[in-house]
């Protein structure tokens, strides 16, 4: 893992060229959160992936992410990758969160304690897990969404 002293810029820094090898993992000792260095896909649901959006892996290559769950090149709800911590333009490089307490956007129906998955109907958002979606779970909500919601991420790293 990359150590504190190994970061060249703040975790929220994004850039048009890679600062680290794609897929690198960073653990923040002050929060217990884990991040992975990724690239935004060439064509996302929005030209810039919005802060707090959840993302999935993309067919464009290893460690490429997308907020487009239902169309395009995103691999969708069965391939969750993490949560955006800084707005990430298409084709840019930056860190996403994969473990620990994350702030996300719900669909307005998530209740405290529920397991959550990527929302197939709303790009970048989360939804309550339904029967048959158990393998897609990315974490548990610790509060009702309003629609933003804190989630304890699990199983992504």
């Amino acid at each position, binding site marked *: 893992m990359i150590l504190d002293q190994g970061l060249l810029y703040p975790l929220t820094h994004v850039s048009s060229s890679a600062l680290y090898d794609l897929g690198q993992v960073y653990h923040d000792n002050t929060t*217990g959160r884990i991040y992975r260095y990724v690239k935004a896909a060439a064509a996302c649901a929005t030209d810039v992936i919005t802060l707090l959006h959840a993302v999935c892996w993309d067919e464009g290559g290893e460690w490429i992410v997308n907020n487009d769950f239902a169309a395009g090149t995103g691999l969708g709800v069965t391939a969750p990758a993490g949560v955006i911590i800084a707005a990430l333009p298409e084709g840019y490089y930056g860190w996403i969160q994969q473990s620990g307490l994350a702030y996300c956007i719900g669909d307005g129906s998530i209740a405290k304690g529920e397991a959550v998955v990527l929302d197939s109907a709303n790009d970048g958002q989360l939804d309550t897990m339904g029967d048959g979606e*158990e393998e897609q779970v990315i974490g548990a909500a610790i509060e009702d969404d309003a629609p933003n919601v804190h989630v304890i991420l699990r199983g992504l790293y």
Partner: protein
Amino acid sequence: MLQLSDLTQPLTYYGATTLHVLGSLLYDEEAAKVYRYCRVAAAATNNALAAGECTCADTGGIYYVNNDMAGGTGLGTIPMGVAISAIPENYYGWIQVGGIAAVTITDAGVAAGDFIVNNTGEDGGCDTMADGEEEQVFGIVVADDVGDAADVLLRGLY
């Protein structure tokens, strides 16, 4: 992640005040195990966690854990890890979240290879995953339980 060399107290030490940031992760390279720094809820079963008990999230706050799976403030279906030592209510300490853990309260019916979940019918316990509980899985049983004890390879907790 923190290393054992970063600690000022043994891994099993608990205190009334925090020594680390809540949620911190620690990797014990020699044992190949991962731990998270948590706070025990204000109302736990038996007023404390015991070594080997399974824990769940708690409504008291982020990285609060509880052995009370079915009542009180514990969120039994959200697994958090396995206690490695006694920690009283409202105290801070480490629980195990990665590697092979020794759990002490199974339902006496778990077998090698079973996926396990928190047992919402027995505080501090775990049992074999049933259909519809897939998202609650936090480990795979290494060998059939002996009495109520079993070794579990933890997964998905951090």
